[in-house]
Every structure is written in structure tokens, then in C-alpha cells.
């Protein structure tokens, strides 16, 4: 019940922090609460590090270095934020139709796998950048179909999409594992150097062009694509007829049907777009920085992206902030583990705390404004 209450509190887009006359008029609560909760969570993280005998100053240094210590690290953090942001956008898109897509993990996996397959088999020789565009499109399509499947089950059979997207993830992840384990599929031939279960490296033509090829930053044009996606999703959700129709269907399916909306179509569409954004995120991970498929490449991104979407409370701008926060946190935690030998689990704990504090304060402010 606690989880459902948290999700409920976070899904309610308005009337959350904007309790009139609640006090903090200088800084809007929408900003204050997330910032404060992040600081509190990081403070608790430091306490954990100190109490387990780690060096706090070393940890902070390693953490900062990993997040933004160099052009390379900044680029890597941003690249992580791109995928998180795309999954988060997908979440709020489906959520506009009152659908909760928790299958980002599986949609990333499908997107990454199909992008790799297309990049390895056929797209490599396409001219004019079509090589990576087609590969990316293949990934997005795979994710969209994976999402649409859940949408179809919801619209035609009434299957709860929380269950179906989660279970579809449990199918997608082993599919990726299978594809990199099997020589008939994507596994690279065993050579003297390597026998790991992973795909061969994709052709250079299918790799996403770097934004700053000269300074060694891995930041690629996926960033531009993500910015476009943010603007488009913002526009669609806020100002388009499609956004209004999705909202209507999500709020009251019967009334929408009576008003002449094809509700099944919009449910499937919402899930397809949501899954497509996740698939695109997965494709960009492979085509942008990793360049070969491994079985657990999506690990955690789907669920972090889901949290980004939840925390944004339906706002595309919120997704950007959340994606950046989680992208940089993840980079920092990886470096902290490598150089300061502090388990990255500490950062995972912090992420969890951020979610709980924000959601908890949402419940509190809701209660206050209801009184």
C-alpha cells in the first residue's frame, strides 16, 4: 500500500506542492522540495559512508570527478541522461492516458537488440548517415511494438499494463541474453582475444556522430535528438489535440468513447510511443557509446527512467531535470566505486531516498491542501 500511495501521490500532476499560502513563497515548493530532498538524501549517503569507515572527502572527490571531473566524464554523464530522459518522456506520455508503463527496461533491451541487429546486418553500408538513422529507427520500432503489445492487451483484453509491461521486460531481457549467447544470432565468433557472450562491434557508419570529436568527450548527437524529443513531447502533451485526447481517454474512457474518441486506438498509441521512446533510448546506448550488445546493457536504466518520469509529475521539463540528476549521480557512483572503493549501492540508496522524500512530502502537502 505504501508503494501505491507513493505512486499515486506522485502521479497527481497538479495540486501537489502549490498549496496556496503554505509559506515558502520566495522559492516555489516545486523547486524547493526536490532540491532539499536531494541534499538530504546525499547527506544521508555521506553519513552512511562515514559510519562504515569510508573517507568522506575521498568519496566526494571521486564522486565529483566521476560526474563532471573531465570533458569525458561530463559527456558520459550526459549520455546516460539521454537514455534516462527518453524513458522518462515515454513514461509521462503513457501516463497522460493514465497508463503506467513500468516496462522501460524491456523496451530499452528490445531497442538496443534490434538496433544492433540492423547495424550489424545491412545498415552498415547505407550512405548519408542513413546507417545510424535506420539502426536507430529499428530500435525505436522494436520498443514501440513491445509497448504497443501491452497497449493492445490493455485496450482489447483489459490486462493491467503495469503487470504486462513488467512481464514483457522479463521476456525481453532473456531475449537479449539469448541473442548474445547464440552464434546463430548476434554473438561474435570466439577468437583468441575474446570469448565473452557479446555481439561484434557495430560498423563505424552506424555509430552516432560525436558532438565534440576533438576534445575526447563521448557526447553524441543523441543529445540533440533528446532535446527535440523533449520539445515535441512537451508540445504534444500541452498544446496538441492528441495530448487532449490522450488525457480525456485516461481520465474517463466511457465518456471519451461516448464523445466519439477511438479509445482503444489512443491506448495502443500511447503505449507504442512510450515504448518507442524507450527503444530509442536503448538504441542510442548501443549506437552512441557502447557499440556492441551485451546481455545486461540495459541494467537499471529502465527503472531509473521510470523514477525520472514519476518524479517529473507529468512535466517534460521535470523529466529533463530528473534525467540530468540521475545521469550524473550514476556516473559519479560508478567512479566512486572504482577509485574510492565505496559501493555504488550507497548512491542507489540515495536515489531511493530522494524518491521517498519527494513522494512523502507530496503526500504531506496534499493532505495539507485538502484540510
Amino acid at each position, binding site marked *: 500500500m505504501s508503494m501505491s500511495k507513493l505512486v499515486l501521490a506522485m502521479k497527481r500532476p497538479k495540486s501537489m506542492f502549490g498549496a*496556496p499560502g503554505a509559506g515558502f513563497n520566495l522559492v516555489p515548493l516545486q523547486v524547493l522540495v526536490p532540491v532539499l530532498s536531494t541534499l538530504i538524501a546525499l547527506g544521508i549517503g555521506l553519513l552512511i559512508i562515514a559510519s562504515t569507515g569510508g573517507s568522506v572527502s575521498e568519496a566526494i572527490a571521486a564522486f565529483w570527478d566521476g560526474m563532471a571531473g573531465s570533458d569525458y566524464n561530463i559527456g558520459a554523464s550526459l549520455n546516460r541522461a539521454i537514455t534516462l530522459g527518453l524513458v522518462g518522456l515515454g513514461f509521462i506520455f503513457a501516463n497522460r492516458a493514465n497508463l503506467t508503463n513500468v516496462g522501460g527496461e524491456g523496451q530499452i533491451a528490445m531497442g538496443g537488440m534490434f538496433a544492433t541487429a540492423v547495424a550489424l546486418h545491412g545498415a552498415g553500408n547505407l550512405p548519408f548517415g542513413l546507417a545510424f538513422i535506420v539502426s536507430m529507427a529499428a530500435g525505436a520500432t522494436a520498443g514501440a511494438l513491445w509497448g504497443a503489445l501491452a497497449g493492445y492487451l490493455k485496450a482489447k483484453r483489459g490486462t493491467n499494463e503495469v503487470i504486462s509491461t513488467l512481464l514483457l521486460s522479463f521476456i525481453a531481457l532473456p531475449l537479449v541474453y539469448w541473442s548474445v549467447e547464440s552464434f546463430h544470432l548476434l554473438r561474435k565468433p570466439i577468437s583468441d582475444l575474446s570469448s565473452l557472450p557479446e555481439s561484434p562491434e557495430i560498423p563505424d557508419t552506424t555509430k552516432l556522430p560525436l558532438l565534440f570529436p576533438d576534445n575526447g568527450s563521448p557526447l553524441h548527437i543523441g543529445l540533440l535528438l533528446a532535446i527535440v524529443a523533449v520539445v515535441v513531447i512537451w508540445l504534444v502533451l500541452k*498544446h*496538441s*489535440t492528441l495530448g487532449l*485526447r490522450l488525457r480525456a481517454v485516461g481520465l*474517463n474512457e466511457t*465518456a471519451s468513447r*461516448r*464523445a466519439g474518441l477511438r479509445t482503444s486506438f489512443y491506448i495502443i498509441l500511447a503505449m507504442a510511443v512510450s515504448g518507442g521512446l524507450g527503444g530509442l533510448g536503448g538504441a542510442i546506448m548501443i549506437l552512441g557509446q557502447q557499440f556492441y550488445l551485451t546481455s545486461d546493457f540495459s541494467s537499471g536504466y529502465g527503472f531509473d527512467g521510470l523514477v525520472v518520469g514519476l518524479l517529473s509529475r507529468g512535466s517534460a521539463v521535470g523529466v529533463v531535470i530528473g534525467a540530468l540528476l540521475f545521469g550524473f549521480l550514476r556516473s559519479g557512483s560508478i567512479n566512486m566505486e572504482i577509485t574510492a572503493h565505496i559501493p555504488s549501492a550507497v548512491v542507489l540508496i540515495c536515489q531511493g531516498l530522494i524518491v521517498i522524500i519527494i513522494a512523502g512530502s507530496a503526500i504531506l502537502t496534499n493532505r495539507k491542501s485538502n484540510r
Partner: protein
Amino acid sequence: MALLELSHLTKQFGTFTALDDISLGIERGEVHCLLGENGAGKSTLCNLIFGVHRPDAGTMLLGGAPLHPRGPAEAIERGIVMVHQHFSLVPNMSVAENLMLGRAKAVLKPQDIIIRMEQLAAEYGLEVNPQVLIEDLSVGERQRVEIIKCLLGDPQLLVLDEPTAVLQPDEIDALLGICRQLTLRGKSVILVTHKLGEIGRVADRTTVLRQGRIIETVAMEGADIRSLVRSMVGRDVQSAGSVLAATIDLEQDAPAHPATGLPSDVNGAPLVPEAAGDAVLRLSDLVYRDADGVTKLDNLSLAINPGEIVGVAGVEGNGQSELGLILAGLASPTSGSIVVGGQSLDGCTPQQITAAGVGIVPEDRHAVACIKELSLAENLFLGAIGKFSRFGLLDKSGRRKAAEAMMREFDVRASSSDVAMSSLSGGNQQKAVLARELSLDPLVFLLAAQPTRGLDVGAIEAVYGRIRAARDAGLGVLLVSSELEELMAVSDRIVVIYRGRLVGELAAGSFSREAIGAMMSGHEHV
């Protein structure tokens, strides 16, 4: 001394003052009616007494001791119980199980509940089978369960918030009888209503609220009911005419229409009128079986001509809801045909039905007619979202202009077209739904199902004004209502539905309560 003494109660929601300096005493053993339009503060007052809300200022005394309930549980402990407009029963549990909820200690003792139910049945005539599931009960029976739930603990004060809005005439009679029984046993009843007829029949005293203030409290013995109406609406109601009088259940003209026996066309005459060609709506042999195979509509045939209002009378649950769903395109008939303006609607989607010129005011406004979280303008153009768009983007200013024009034309009152539908009063919501449906182009037929349910007097007047005007403009109207007086005041023709079949028809001028009532309960030949 009064049982409940309220002094100077004030309650605000944000900037809106729901109750303003309310002072009132409820005596032991009286039925005290609260009368007022929607938004007058009746429900808020009840919620203060029951501990749902807390007053911003003022005090309450119960039996001389201060009353500050911090929640319904505390109010119940003090002997105050309330039946809300919306029931709080678990549909797939039995009556006895529902009664045990929230009151059972660690060990469930169904036997105690059943014994207590037998006592209550003997005392008040509140009979319900304890083993039946709530979902199998009618609305009236569910309300009876709510009342039993309230009486289990032997309370001093029973608060009923618009209990009769959902009831059939005979169920209302039974409820009012129960109220009297309660007062005979020294209990007090607060009855919220806006039906004056009920007040005349049951109230000892009546308090009229308007805009959060008490206008007057009158003892009903020898009181003039018309003056109550004036206090309630704040103006004279003579202009309102017979519709108003009928809908607030004033039987002023009742003796003028003595039962003249049954109209001649009841006995076996065909229900479909002769003028066949130009009917706007023609239902032929409509059969509908629900998912469980239960026949809800049984060979129903009906034709509606342009420029007439056909009322459908019947006890609720005799197929009216299903007929409404089928006409709205939300259910498909098992067999039979629907023809609108010469065009068959077999297998049509709601969109196609709208395009054929059918307007629908469904009985369940919140579930089917509007989306309360969306704005008024968005609801006014729910079916025409694409009408105000450029390249897929919303043309909000164009929509606002059109919405404001519609609001003016149909007198929908809201501070702007951008406010949430949920912030409108029930009456204005219904006017908005009517505005949308009556603005359809083309429009040849309107279904209005329970169009005035839960509305206050002013809104009822407006709704019927609109429906009549539409009729006068040549529309065919099918009016489904459970308020007999309303049907008799508005319809040009009344058909009676019983167990999914039309069992009788009365032409204008031959309406009689007795005849319709008899047919409604299945007595085809009185």
C-alpha cells in the same frame, strides 16, 4: 434543551465561504429538514456535525456537552450517524458482512448482527435479507442497509443527506415513514432535501439555507410552503410554472386531475403511432440481453415523431439504463433495429450515432457525459476536439470564444470557460452537457435520461426550458425519468416500461398518476 445546539458556525474553503455564522438547535424527537439550492451549504453543515470537516469558528453542543468531532468515528461514538448521498458499501460482500465492517471486534459474530437486524426489522420495518450480496440489491434496499448500519449502535441523531434523490416514489414513502418512526422513539433526524413535498409530509421544522446563511427556520404546522420556496431561491416562483411545482413535488394540482380510468389506447392498441414515415427515431423489436444472459429489453418498439417529447415512466431497473446505453452506442442490442431519420444505426459507433443527429444526455453525468477533471471548454467540445486545431495544435483562443458564446446562449455559469468541470455546480454541469448535445449539427433526436437528477430548482427550470424549446424547434425527445410528476408536466406522451417492455401509453391530457403507477408496477389491466 435542544439535543444539538449549533452556534455561530463558520466554514470556509479557500476564499469561498460555505457556511456563514450558522446558529441552529435540533430538538429531541424532531425531523428537521434542511432546504436549499445546490451549494447553499446543506452538505457542508452535515459534514461539520458528522466530523468530516471541522468548523473554522463557532461551537457545537450535543446534549449540553461540547462536540468537536475530529472525524466521523468520534461523531458516531457520540451517537451521531449519517447516511451520505453516495453509499459506502462493499458491493461484493453480503449485507451482514457489510454491517460487521468497522464495528466487529477481534471475533466476528454474525449471529449478533442478524439478531440486531431482526430487532430493527420489527421496530422500524427495515427488512433486508442479511445473506444477500449488496450488488444484488436495488438502490432503495442499499439505502436501507445504510440506515440499518446507522441504527446498529442506537444513535441519538441521524443525518440523511439527500436520501430521496435516488429513490422511487414508494421507497420515498417508506423512508419518510422510517423517519417518523425514529422520532417517535425519541431520536432526531436531520433531513437534507430540495423537494418541498417531502418536507410537507415529514418535517417538524425546516431551516432554509441560501449561500451559506440561514434564511429562516419555520415550524411546519400551518406553514406556507410557497414562502419556503421564495426563501430558498430568493425570488418568487410563480413564474416557474407547473414544471417547477411538479419537480419539487408540490401536489398543488393533484385534485385537478382525478383518476379518470385508463386511457383507451392502453388495452392492446399498438404502441407505434400511425404516422410511420417521418418518425425521427424508430426502435423496432429491440432486444437486449446483458452479459449474464438476462433479458433487459424485451421486444421494445417505439417511434418518436418530430416535435414531441415522449416520456418513459418506470421503476428504475426496468431497462431504462440499457436503452440509454444502446442509444448512446455504448452497448449493442442483441437484436432489433434503431432507425434515426431514415438511417439505420445498427452496429454504429458513438461517433456515427452523433453524426446521424442523435444527442444524448446520459443518466450518469459523471461517468458518461463529461470528464470532470477537464475544463468546461474542453467538455463543451469533447466530441469536436479536432474542430479547434491548426496542424494538430489546439487553437485555445478560438475554442474559448466558441465556448463563451455557448455559455451565454445556454446560461452556463462559470467564472471562465477554463475552469475545471468539477468546480461547476451540478446544474451548470448539466446545462453544459445540454449545450453540447443541443448544439450538434445535424440534430434530430435527443435522449434526456434523468436530466434533472440532483439539480436544484433553478437548474431544473432551465433544463426543461431547453428541452421544450428543442421540441418546439422540431426535435424528437425521449425523456427518461423516475420522477412521475416531472414526466407528467413535460411530456406530450408517456410510455410505461416494465421489465424491458413497453406496457402502456398515455396521450397528453389523459395522464393520471394512478394509471401510470399501476402500469409501472406491472398491472397492465387495473
